[in-house]
């Protein structure tokens, strides 16, 4: 038998049918559903008189436009409320488990899958959301789909897929203190650009990835889409198995033994070939910060705003001029010291317990700068509960942060949590597109540590110097 990549093994194990010249029909093990990309899919089912084939392999929650304020209050945005009501009605009609606003299992869809143990190695997982790549951290093949494909999976539990190419991104060496998984993935996207991995599934390998916790691996896989990749994955190992142990839906007893046999067979065979290879030395990385209007426009915090005149083509120069104009930045200005007005800690990228712990360590005993409005939005009800058990909420509140209910919040600003025009924000989210966090808002993507330090300082800082001081 020829050597296979982990991706190829999972792909092969899920082929329901493959006809020459046609896309493969792949079986989907888990379908995650949320309020924004599902309504039209359920409508399509009704119009065609179709049922949900496997409601028990489908789970829904509300995350994108939920308010993060007091859940006992009515929802003021009637259009958002309607979208949530429609999801609830659809789930009731089609027999789908729903974790709504008042469920203790509610949260950002990519946070609750893993914490419930629904995300497991070797599975195919899809969701009408591009950050579904997060689940690849467990050695699953997980990717975002559009609403037509949501309908397709609801009706058939399958998807038609063309075989992607594979890319190994090997991260050697060890991270320096103050440098995190977020900085690794921002560094990778900076190298690849936002389309560098289009058409590829990435497998992240190497010493730095092996040394990471599951939560850090999720941060890396989460942003694979920002390099254009269809999915990102990490081979399962003892760290993965330890994380799954005891999770509500993780296998137990004899099932666990059978599952472990499968899980241990998944890692890429020695000698298996990838179509592309990118290597990064983690020990050379600094904390990264984005300065432009896409996640490929990033630099180490020690760097300066780039000069459009250095661009190779007129088109590239024009893009950069547009980005800097939107961001209100001058070529050559240092990134370190750039004043900010808002801080957002949360999202499917950095809204898990470890993220909040690391941010809390930076703010402990400090005060948010008087010029800054800062908020922490836990990724799920469960993350919030665990964080409060450790007293992290008190640390943030004492420092002057707002402590909110779970949701996507200001990562995409579909709920009332948005930036005002020209407001500058240090954000732990995943996209710095124009208007993403609010029309005219200026997003700088950073790690939780960097966001926390910026909140205290009132400007972007190199968190390594910050840690040395305190």
């Amino acid at each position, binding site marked *: 038998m020829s050597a296979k990549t982990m991706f190829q093994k999972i792909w092969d194990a899920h082929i*329901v*049918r493959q006809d020459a*010249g*046609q*896309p493969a*029909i792949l*079986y989907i093990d888990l379908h995650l559903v949320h309020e*924004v*990309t599902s*309504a039209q899919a359920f*409508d399509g089912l009704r119009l065609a008189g*179709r049922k949900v084939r496997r*409601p*028990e392999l*489908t*789970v829904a929650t509300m995350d*994108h*436009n939920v308010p993060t304020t007091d859940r006992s209050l009515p929802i003021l945005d009637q*259009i958002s409320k*309607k*979208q949530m009501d429609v999801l609830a009605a659809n789930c009731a009609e089609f*027999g*789908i*488990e729903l974790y709504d606003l008042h469920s203790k299992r509610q949260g950002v869809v990519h946070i609750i899958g893993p914490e419930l143990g*629904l995300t497991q190695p070797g*599975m195919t997982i899809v969701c*009408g*959301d*591009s950050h579904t790549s997060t689940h690849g951290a467990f050695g699953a093949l997980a990717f*975002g*789909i*559009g609403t*037509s*494909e949501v*309908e*397709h999976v609801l009706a*058939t*539990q*399958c998807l*038609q897929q063309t075989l992607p190419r594979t890319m190994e991104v090997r991260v050697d060496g060890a991270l320096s203190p103050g440098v995190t998984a977020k900085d690794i993935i921002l560094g990778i996207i900076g190298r690849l650009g936002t*389309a560098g991995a*289009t058409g590829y599934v990435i497998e992240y390998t190497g010493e730095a990835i092996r040394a990471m916790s599951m939560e850090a691996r999720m941060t890396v896989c989460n942003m694979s*889409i920002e390099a*254009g990749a*269809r999915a990102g994955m990490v081979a399962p190992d003892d760290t993965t198995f330890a994380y799954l142990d005891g999770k509500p839906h993780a*296998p137990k007893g004899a*099932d666990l033994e059978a599952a472990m046999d*499968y899980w241990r067979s998944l890692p890429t065979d020695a000698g298996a070939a990838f179509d592309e290879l990118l290597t990064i030395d983690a020990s050379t990385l600094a904390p990264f910060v984005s300065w432009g209007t*896409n996640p490929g426009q990033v630099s180490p915090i020690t760097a300066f705003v780039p000069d459009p005149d250095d661009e190779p083509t007129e*088109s590239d120069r*024009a*893009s950069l001029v*547009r980005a800097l104009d939107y961001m209100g930045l001058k070529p050559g200005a240092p990134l370190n010291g750039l004043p900010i007005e808002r801080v957002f800690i949360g999202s499917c990228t950095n809204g898990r317990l470890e993220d909040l712990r690391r941010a809390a360590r930076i703010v402990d005993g400090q005060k948010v700068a008087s010029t800054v409005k800062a908020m922490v939005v836990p990724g799920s009800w469960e993350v919030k509960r665990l964080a409060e058990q450790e007293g992290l909420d008190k640390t943030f509140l004492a420092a002057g942060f707002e402590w909110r209910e779970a949701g996507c919040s200001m990562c*995409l600003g*579909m709920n009332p949590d948005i930036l005002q025009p020209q407001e500058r924000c240090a954000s732990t989210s995943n*996209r710095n597109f*124009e*208007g*993403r966090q609010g*029309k005219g808002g200026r997003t700088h993507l950073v790690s939780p540590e960097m966001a926390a330090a910026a909140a205290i300082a009132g400007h972007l800082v190199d968190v390594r110097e910050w840690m040395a001081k305190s």
Partner: protein
Amino acid sequence: MTPFTSLTAPVAFLDRANVDTDQIIPKQFLKRVERTGFGEFLFFDWRFNADGTLNVDFELNTPDMAGAGILVAGKNFGSGSSREHAPWALMDYGFRVIIAPSFADIFYNNCFKNGLLPIVLDDPSIELLRSAASGERYVLTVDLQTQSITDGKGIEIAFLVDAFRRHCLLNGLDDIGLTLEHADDISAYESMRPSRMPSLAGQR
């Protein structure tokens, strides 16, 4: 799905790279629960000024681009979010063809599901179209049968498209229907699936 065979329509040029789906249809318009009515919000933050007036400097707002059915865009068009509202908005506005040097993966896929034809052309071909248009109202015919783009004035460009996708688009095939033709294969696969796989059964 609406079939696509050929289209003769005016062309709009949007000379920007990495146009993301947040620009194509900003998030504040994703709350509709229908597939229709998104066209008026297409490129909203670019088409309109903060006070709601038309931004006359935006490419699509120039008079010769009114009624365009073909959009010629920059590389990596449709990057970012998986929102299918992006192709819905483009179609609702009147576009049936998007031509670009490259597309983001999910967006490209979403287009075919809706009868919107995304065509990848190399930079020199796009430059050829741009110079032929020379800032005037410019009409192209895109024929999926013959896989050609012509302007009736001598320009003829061939394009490639996956044979299966082309077949589905020409015939307006419903791919759920196609998959359900293989319901026996799906059932056979399911009968082999280990029972230990996670399931929400019994949760309700």
